[in-house]
């Protein structure tokens, strides 16, 4: 068995210094070593999106990144993003639209939706559907998720338009 490696990283704003097996995936490190459970294991090979977290601000699959690969990086999970209010508008829209049922995909859906809003604010309904197609949901049939994202996008563009008037 390979020797444990020392790593240092920032997870949800807190510095973590520890040792891990080189083979340990980031998702297992977060869930089993740090007991941060908001990101979840669905397929373990990068398909379903349930384990989505942010690595240096970028959305990644926690099952495709090794913990040692996150050394000297910042990692943020749904809990961290939620606690600092980063996802409040999306969370409210998901709640209002019932854009989740069992909730197992929700961490991935919210982080993917946040990335879409940040990088593609002019997305059409079809483009939202296309962008969100990296994340599996077995419960909702996706329409409510698309509706919720569309609600947030149109509220943003309305507030931007309102701002320009002033």
């Amino acid at each position, binding site marked *: 068995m390979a020797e444990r490696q020392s790593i240092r990283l920032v997870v949800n704003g807190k510095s973590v210094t520890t040792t891990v097996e080189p083979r*340990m995936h980031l998702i297992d490190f977060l869930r089993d070593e740090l007991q941060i*459970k908001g990101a*979840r*294991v669905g397929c373990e090979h990068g398909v379903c999106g349930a384990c989505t977290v942010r690595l240096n601000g970028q959305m990644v699959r926690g099952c495709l990144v090794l913990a040692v690969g996150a050394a000297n990086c910042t990692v943020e999970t749904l809990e961290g993003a939620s606690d600092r209010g980063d996802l409040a508008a999306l969370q409210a829209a998901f709640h209002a639209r019932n854009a989740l*049922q069992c909730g197992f995909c929700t961490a991935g859906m919210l982080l993917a939706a946040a990335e879409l809003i940040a990088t593609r604010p002019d997305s059409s309904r079809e483009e939202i559907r*296309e962008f969100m197609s990296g994340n599996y949901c077995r419960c909702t*049939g996706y329409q409510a998720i698309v509706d919720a994202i569309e609600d947030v996008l149109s509220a943003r563009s309305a507030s931007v338009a309102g701002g320009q008037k002033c």
Partner: protein
Amino acid sequence: MLTPTKSEQRIADELRYIGAPVPRPNALRLLQGRGVYVDDIVLPRMAHVVYWRSPIAHGRITSFDASFATMMPGVIGVFGAEDIADICTPWVGTLAHLPGMKSPPQYPLARGHLCWQGEPVFAVVAETRHQAEDALAYLRIEWDELPVVANMERALDPDSPLIHPELGDNLCLTRTIDNGAVDATFASADVVVEESYRFGRHTGVTMETRSVLADFNAADHTLTVYHSHQAPHMMQDLYSRHLNLPETSVRVICKDVGGSFGIKVHSYPDDFATVALSKLLKRPIKFVADRLESFTSDVHARDHLVKARLAATKDGHILAFEIDDLTGVGPYSVYPRTSGIEGNQVLNITGGPYQHANYRARLRVVFQNKPPMSQYRGVGHPIACAVTEGIVDLAASKLGIDPLAFRKMNVMHDDTYPRTGASGIKLEGLSHDACLARIERLADYDGLRDEQRRLREDGVFRGIGIAAMVELTNPGPAFYGIGGARIAAQDGATVRLDAGGGITVMVSVGEQGQGSETIFAQIAADALSIPIERVRVITGDTSVTPYGGGTWASRGAGIGGEAVLQASNALGMQLIEFASAVHERSSEGLKLFNGQVMDAESGAFLIDLKDLASKAYFRPDTLPRDFQPELSATRHFSQRDYPFVFTNGVHVSYVEVDVDTGMVKLLKHWVVEDCGRVINPMLVDEQIRGAVVQGIGGVLFEECLYDEAGLLRNGSMADYLVPMASEMPDIEIAHVETRTKTSALGAKGAGEAGSAGAPAAVMNAINDALAPFHARVTSQPITPEKILVALGKVTPGRA
């Protein structure tokens, strides 16, 4: 005084929440990553189990050596069937009301006879999951292969290998319905159409895999099991009986459940093995299936081949249906709900919406060396509906009658209930006429037909598919209880006034994301006229809630909701009695309003429930000496007027088929559904949408592909296709409300109607698009390859 009938009973003075799109309070924790699924739970001294599963479809273990594996770091032990034989007894998955059904005894770990790829055989327990998986690779196991029964169509051949020679053949169950004169009707009919329909194997693919954390306490001999499950009391009963523990010593807790869809309503051999290992090792043991294990050990669904015939008069009246259903269910009938229910439902439901008098059906359920098949969302309905609606469309086309007009003519009309269908199903009250009329406007049926005609001239081939359906919901004991299975047909609710004036509701029906807890809160809040923020719902713990069946067969709202209503009304009357005692006046004319007791006539405020609670809990010295307030009420409800309360609905699918590539684009889907009283329109619509998309998965994408050796070829989420956001259409939904008179609430089930009707509607839409080419596809999933074969553009088997 006359007792009011159930449907005349009062629900509430004012409906503030029932009927409103109340968002789910319990969704907030899921939105912040604060849900708790089984894998999130960590207990002191917890160990992890992984299973060595059969790598082949049929064979016998010839040698087994765990000496290397047991030396691996962290390994606590390696265990086989013999090690837990004294702890857990085997089971047989049959039901007495399915006569002649047979299935061999099944054990938590296979006793050397390997019957499907994925069957658990040996268990490796270690301190961590990584260590257990590392050790798994060091087990030395040899086996001999046995002849495989992979193809269900050959399972009953005289020269077929037998999976369980002691049973004499590979037949699990057969059943027939024949209400007479079918041959004569077909012989004299003006029009007879005939077609075969095939339904591939698929499975639920819950996002959270099956998970169980068993904690046996050797000191007090109690077993606590954290389960990702839909029926905690059923599992409590099974663990109690098979591990020889008193029922009261077994506690099953279901916290958040990451998708269920029927996959998590069964017991699995690895559930029993995990619990038995906890008892053997006297410590908590966690089992969480990985995704490959899910594909090879979760129950599969469908796998039917149905030959169907329909007889009609030349003016378009359907006279008779005849079907022959063959279904392959793996090597064991699943315990305790069996693998016979889906086929049984196909027989009961086929032809369900229509007036025909004559019906004959045969079912054969056969064993094969593939994963066990059992109930998954829709259970038989997607098959019955696709067969019925497929052949109804074929008949309409042969008669030259518009398919919507043909259905309008032949459905059981709304003013003819109660009545009995040709298969013998008892129908309380349905609304096919109203639903067909509604969807015609909702989808702008004539407009769609015009668009279809116009586009065909440009070489664009669109199709409109209709599926009328019935669905059985709110079952009484007809499903399982009468067959001897200890699966509760009733549910119970306890409603309690807490010391702070809030209301706690404990219900035996749980939550897997569909919104059960929310609608229970809505019902209690209205019945007690209290702001919903003051209502807290608790489910999913056999030590806390009343006993009940849980969520299956679309019964949570109708059965569990009625129990909540009755318990809330009972508590409401107790609180009014209490207030009248406190104020030394008659309870006549008092009512609950907005968290207070008031005089209905004068509107005068008597007392707030908070003050009532304070008096009861902390200052009973201020109460009249002879008055003892009752602060909680429990009521149980079972639906006993009908075997099942049927719902109905109709789907329309609009698709475009690319006749060069065989690709299907879903343009839009409409549903008009009658589930009786709609308690929460948003949640009902979301149930329908989710189920429609699962139905679309079955008709277009999902299939567990097996080779001739019975080995799975696509056991990963990358290879097994499920619907994704970009492929799905928007789904528009409308409701007709025919309330059931079997309860005061009047609610029927809604969770499965989407998956029941969608496959038929999409199949019919594709065939409508292909009509100019005289091509038809009737094998699900309808892949581009199958469409191109039907169009004659590629050769079968060479695509």
